[in-house]
Each structure stands twice: as structure tokens, then as C-alpha cells.
């Protein structure tokens, strides 16, 4: 069997599933009677090449990157934090409730910082139950985080409808934060500065994981818990630390999205980014830089896909089909890679 140098092999493993998914997805488009080349071209143009599209794409990246940063921490620690939707949404609602209330009295910078921190804190708090159950009793965090996620999504709606509802609107939603009070825009674009926070978070997490003692400890725990015990690491504290850091970053994502883009949260709003970001993070092999590139790719696909849905009549869900295909090919390539004969 031919062996490739490591970085090249990694690139192949990331690019090949995407290329295969685009090819098979193109076949599906053909069946729908659409020209795949035209579709992909359109998506590329609208999502990346036009200034407006590019700005929208880049704006979309901010919450995705922050969720990805959180998931990198959790997954490297071997912890399946699948409760990102609940953590994200509760943090978003917290920021949406807090910011307008503070805006009347405090200066803008302080309002934003306080709201961002509050979002992160709420996200972390929401992960505490699964984290403690995992650390102390070894309870499976997949189940507990999913359960907490449902509760978090529901609680968010309850908060919006009962506590934070803006009386001035018919649709239940929180009081809107005025545009001039939101996160400052970058230069003359529509992109808000939350993107910088997100990029800093992803790169920061990457450096934390690869260059610090904490990151190495977390990864020892994630790769071989018995070895972590053997090496005398404080396993329970590491689990708590990794879990809360993960959820805090995801919560920060929720706050950034609200403070940067929407200024309010409507009842029953749930972008469910987790379903997209979890596979993306694995596709990137938990590498921060690869996450940035892939997030750009998927964000462009989403932006362009929405335009294409309007203009070409391809359902918007087609983007999700592509994501699913990427995942399937990722799994397939992983399987083929593992199947390579090893010395018995």
C-alpha cells in the first residue's frame, strides 16, 4: 500500500469526502433536472465572490466558529458534548434579555462585554449537570447533554414568552437591542466584530490544545483515561474544566450571534447549528485551522444555497444533503484507511 506524507494524507482525507459529496450531490441535482455545474457556480458566486455574499458568509461563520471551538475542547477531552443547541440558545436568550436592560444605564462597551460574559457563563452553567454526573459517576455524557439540550431549548422559549417578552410586538420575542448598540461592524462592511472574537477563540483553543500543559492533560484524558489516572492527573477536575470551557465557548457563540446580528431572539428560534458543526469539527480532525477553512466552505454553501433556492428552485435543504454526503464519505474513507492491513 502506498503511504503518503502525513500533511498530504490529511489533506486527502479532508478534501476527498467533500469532492465525492459534491460529485454525488451533482448527480442528485441532475436527477432534479438542474444543471449541477450551473448550481455550484451560482453558489460559489453568491456565497464567496460577490461582496455582499462574502460578507454574509463571513458573518455566518462567527457562531459556527465559536461552537466549533467549544466542540474541539470537548472532543479532544474525549467528551461528547452534544448539548450545544441548548447551551447556545440559552446563552443567546440571556444576552438578548440582558443587553437591552443594561443599555439604558451603561455605556455600550460595558453592555457588550457584560452580555458576552453572561452568555458564556450561562452556557457553562448549563453543562455543569452533565459534567458533574460524568466526572463523579461516569454517567454517559451523550445522553445527559442531549437531555439538557432539550431542556435548554424549552427553557429558552419559556423565558422569552413569560419573562423577557417585548410587549410592543405581536410575535413573542425579546426586546430588541438597537442596531447602534450591537457589536461594532468591521470597516465598512456588514460583518460584525464577533467574527474576530470567534477567530481568536478557535486559534486560541488550537494553541491551548497543542502548546500548553492543560491542553496535553486534556488530550491524555480524552485519548486514554486509564493513562490519565496512571499519570496522576486530576481526572474529575479536568472533566469539569473541559466541559465548562466547551460550553462557555458555545454560549459565547450564542451571545455573539444575538449581539452581532439579530439584537433579539424570537420564540421557537433554534438554528440547531450543532448538527452541522459536530461533523465539521470531525472532518477537520479537531484541528483549529482546518475548522476555519471548513467553516468558510459550509457558510458559503449555506449563503449561496439560500440564494440558489430562490433563484434556481433547488430546495434549501440541499445544503444539508451535501453535509450528509460529506459525512458518509468521511466515514467511508475513515473505514478504508483503518482497513489497511496491519502487522498482526
Amino acid at each position, binding site marked *: 500500500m502506498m503511504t503518503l506524507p502525513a500533511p498530504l494524507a490529511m489533506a486527502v482525507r479532508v478534501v476527498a469526502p467533500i469532492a465525492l459529496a459534491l460529485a454525488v450531490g451533482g448527480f442528485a441535482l441532475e436527477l432534479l433536472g438542474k444543471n449541477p455545474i450551473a448550481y455550484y457556480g451560482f453558489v460559489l458566486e453568491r456565497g464567496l465572490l460577490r461582496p455582499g455574499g462574502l460578507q454574509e458568509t463571513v458573518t455566518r461563520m462567527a457562531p459556527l466558529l465559536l461552537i466549533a471551538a467549544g466542540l474541539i475542547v470537548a472532543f479532544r477531552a474525549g467528551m461528547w458534548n452534544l448539548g450545544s443547541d441548548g447551551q447556545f440558545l440559552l446563552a443567546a436568550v440571556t444576552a438578548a434579555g440582558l443587553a437591552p436592560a443594561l443599555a439604558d444605564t451603561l455605556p455600550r462597551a460595558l453592555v457588550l462585554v457584560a452580555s458576552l460574559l453572561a452568555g458564556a457563563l450561562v452556557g457553562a452553567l448549563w453543562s455543569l449537570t452533565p459534567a458533574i454526573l460524568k466526572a463523579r459517576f461516569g454517567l454517559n455524557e451523550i445522553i445527559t447533554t442531549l437531555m439538557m439540550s432539550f431542556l435548554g431549548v424549552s427553557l429558552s422559549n419559556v423565558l422569552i414568552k413569560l419573562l423577557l417578552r417585548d410587549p410592543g410586538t405581536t410575535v413573542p420575542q425579546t426586546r430588541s437591542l438597537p442596531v447602534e448598540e450591537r457589536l461594532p461592524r468591521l470597516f465598512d462592511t456588514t460583518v460584525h466584530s464577533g467574527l474576530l472574537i470567534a477567530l481568536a477563540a478557535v486559534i486560541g483553543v488550537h494553541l491551548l490544545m497543542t502548546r500548553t500543559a492543560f491542553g496535553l492533560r486534556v488530550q491524555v484524558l480524552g485519548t486514554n483515561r486509564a493513562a490519565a489516572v496512571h499519570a*496522576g492527573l486530576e481526572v474529575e477536575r479536568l472533566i469539569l474544566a473541559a466541559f465548562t470551557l466547551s460550553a462557555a465557548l458555545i454560549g459565547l457563540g450564542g451571545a455573539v450571534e444575538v449581539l452581532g446580528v439579530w439584537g433579539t431572539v424570537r420564540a421557537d428560534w433554534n438554528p440547531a447549528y450543532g448538527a452541522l458543526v459536530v461533523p465539521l469539527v470531525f472532518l477537520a480532525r479537531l484541528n483549529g485551522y482546518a475548522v476555519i477553512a471548513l467553516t468558510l466552505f459550509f457558510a458559503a454553501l449555506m449563503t449561496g444555497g439560500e440564494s440558489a433556492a430562490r433563484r434556481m428552485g433547488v430546495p434549501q435543504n440541499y445544503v444539508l444533503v451535501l453535509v450528509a454526503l460529506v459525512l458518509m464519505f468521511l466515514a467511508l474513507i475513515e473505514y478504508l484507511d483503518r482497513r489497511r492491513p496491519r502487522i498482526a
Partner: protein
Amino acid sequence: MGRGQGARAHELGHGAREVVAADRDVTDSDAAAGPDAAATPDAAAARQAVASLREVTKRFPGIVALERVSLEFRAGETHILLGENGAGKSTLVNLLAGMLRPDEGEILVQGRAVRITSPRRSHELGIGVVYQQLLLVPSLTVLENLMLGGPWWRPLRRAAALARFEDLSRMLGTRIDPDARVGALSLGEQQHVEIIRALWRDETLLLLDEPTSMLTPQGVLDLGRMLQGLKARGTALVLITHKLPEAFAFGDRISVLRQGRLAGALEPERLRAMSGAERTDTVLALMFGADAEPAPAERERLAGRTVHHGARVARTEPPLLALREVSTRGSRGSRGETPLEGVSLELWPGEVLGIAGVDGNGQKHLAEVIAGQRAASAGRIEIAGADVTRGRVPERRRAGVRYVTDERLGEGTVGPFSVATNLVLKEIGAAPLWRHGITDWDRIERHAREVIAQYDIRTPSERTPIAKLSGGNIQKVLLARELDPGARVAILNKPTHGLDFRNAQLALERIGAAAARGLALIVISTELDELLEVSDRIGVMYRGRLAGIVENAAQAERRIGVLMTGAAAA
């Protein structure tokens, strides 16, 4: 390989004599009893080959695991396969078990060329395999385990299975409750269940991969008796072993593999005609090559020379390590392991304390409680007089305690991480390799390169994932990490387990050198001869208690043997 001449040979020698009722006088130097000439009449030539390999080659990336190997396995004959780690024995088993396919050559079963495409196919062809590790489901009963593996659509028929189980039990002379949970059986009994499973479909070829590695001396006797019965019924037996005395006791025919090639074979007639010493010499020459240097070393071992040169231990000083009535009953995560009960011992610098005993009598807890990995539920642990009972691993390490675990990949290392990282796994965050929590990778890798050179660790680079290294080299990494200059007390759990002769010898030498440097060492092993070689005193664990500690002097073996049965504990 070829290890276990000393005490093991004695135990086995006696057992083997019983088993095969050898009619020859066996002297001490000729510890290994021969195959029984009387019970195997000279019909060898007439015996049929149940299975054979013809010019079989199997390659893996960068390595030829088997090269044009031809072997025959005959009915009613025990065929011993010997060879160092990596000689190709496991590959050979996997080929017959349907786990691997040969690249070249063919496998014949009952004279017909066959393709063994899966383990199921292997069973259908009448090949049963008993692996070194037990592959039973501990939470299921014996019978349930045996009924596994049928087609999914067929309902389980208890009555039929029970009848079959009783047939085989009678034939093998075992008495196991078919409704007992497998997890509750002793290792020896579990292995009997494995053998029953391997014979479930009237298999005519039975492969056993190091079947004695975890058995008590009594278990080895039982196994021998069982194999003898199977042989009489015309089953072809293939036995892979590291231990020469066993090879001579059980084997009718011996084939030696070296680096994937058949280095040579001893035919039954030739084997019978040889004296014990001749056999040993011949086999060692085949295993290591005639001019290789380990063979003389092995002979010196046979002659009783030891690695340890006798420590001058000043017992007037306070002990470096002391355990006072330490128990671990009820500590977390015990999972049916034997806890310690009131274990006391004292250890002085420069001393090696061997811990003998059948596996699973509390040795693991002893190691873990000293390393700080497991909390003591009662008692005191002292290092140089200071109470460290409450300290965990980091505090113990700072006090100079080191622990070489027997689970090298399970807990000793992180498999996908580099050799360099694994060398500092227990120092994460400490200066000078970390400054303010920031990793100095350059320094870690430089450190690794130095250690790799110093300890002759064979690895493509310091960045290679440690799981890709051989067992012997992984152990070198662990020994380098734990017997570092800061070490004062080290506990080594089965330091030679699974290593081939050279690496095992190297590990023992390193232990001797550490003792000479003034470390206080505890060596846990199930290989008594090894303990006799390195220890000043030997303690015996029995059901969580330290049944006794004896000076490593004349008659030590006999006294240890008595302690191992628990006779003295009562």
C-alpha cells in the same frame, strides 16, 4: 522465549512427569521431561496430516511476517511452535484461524487446498483456536458463551448444547458448572471453556497460543492431562509457547520460526533420542542462530547465574518504603479485583523485593496503592519515615516513587501520542519542559532523542506514535521514564510479561542496575525463576494478603511454593 528454565522447569518438570508418565530419570540439569515414548508408539510415519502449509508467505507493509513456510500438523501429534516475538507465530495462527489470508503458497486441510476466508470458515474446516487472551463474555454463563456464534436465525437449543457440553467435559475430564457465570470461574477453568468451545464442532486441529502463560502450576498440569487425552483421540495439536520446558514436556515435534522463516524442526524420532541438554542447545541455536550471543547468556541463566549481585542492604537504617497493615477493601473501581488485606512490608535502598503469587491475588492493588493510584482504606504508607498515605500520584512521584505498570498500552502510555510525549507523560506541566504551562516541544523532543539513544529504544523517530513500537521497545520507554535519576522507590508489575528473551533479559538487567544505584525495588511477577534471579527477598501474595516473605537463599523455591498454595496463610 526460552525463558523460564530455573524454577519453572522444576515445577513443570514434576508436572510433566506426571502428565506423560515419562519412564526416564530426569535430573536437575535435565529439568524438562521428554515426550512420552511409551504413549506414542512409533506409528508417527503413518499419521495423517490434518492440515499443512505449503510455501506460505505473508507480507505486511515493510515486513515479511512469514516467508515460504511449510509445516505439517498430524493427527494425534503435538506440534510445538517456538520463536521470538515477531518470528511469525501469531501470523501463522491467524492464517489458520481465518483472520488473515496468505499472499503466496497454500493451506491444505485433509489434503485439499482451501481458502480460509473467515473465522467461521476456519471452524467449518475443523480448526479450533484458543488464543492467549480469553475471549469469553464474563457476564454470560458457560453454556451461553458456548452457544454464541451460531447462525442468527437459529434458536438456541439448551438441551442439545448441554449434551454436547457434557460429552466434551467427559472427554476432557473437566468438571465445570455449565450455568456458572464465566466471570466467576478461575482463569484455568475459563481456559477449559475456551478449549471446549474450540472443540465444539469436533474440530480436528486445535491451536493453542501460549496457553500456559496465565495458569497456575496446577492449571498447567490439568492442561497437560487434557491435551494428552485429546492427542489419544487423534486430534492434531499445535502449541505455541515461550517456555522450553513446556515445549519438551508436551511436544512430539518442534518447529522453530525465526524472522518469518522456518529455522528448523525436530522430528519426533530425533527429539526422543536427544538428552535434555542437547535439546535445549539445539533449540536455542535454532531460535537465535548458531552464532548469536544470547544463547550463551541463556545457558548461563540455566547454570544459575543471576542478574542481581547481592545487595549490601543496611537494615539498621529506617526503611525507605514501609507499608503498615495496608488494606484496599472497598476502594473505588475495584471491579472484582482482589483487594489488599493488612499488608505490611519494609524495603531498604538497594534492595529488590520480589512478589510472587498466582495472578489476581492482589498484586495489582499492591502496585497501585504504593504508586498512589489507589487509595488505601486502612493502614499507613511511609517513605523514608514520612507518612504519605494520603498523597496521590503527584505527591508520591515527588517523593521518588515510580511505577512500571503491566498494562503498557492500557494505562502506561497513550498509544497515538509520540514517544517523546509518552516519555514525559507523568511530568506534564513541570519545569523545565513547561514554563508557565507553555509546552517547550523542542526541549521535550531533545530530551526524547537523548533517552532514545541512551536506552537503545528502536523507533523511527521520537515523534512516532508509541503504539507502533514493539512491546520490548514500549517497555524500554516505560523503564526509562520510571527509573529516571529522581527515582528512589520503584514498583514494577510483570516487567517481562510478553517480552521476548532479549528484551526480558534487558529489563531484568535494568532492574539489577537500578538496585545497584541504590533504588528500592519491588518486582511483581508470576515467573518464579525470574524473581529468583533478581530478588533479595521474595514475598508471596495469596488472596490479598502477603502470605510471607522469604530470603532468596537455598530452599526458597520450596517455601515459596508452599506459600503460593495458601497453606501457610491459614
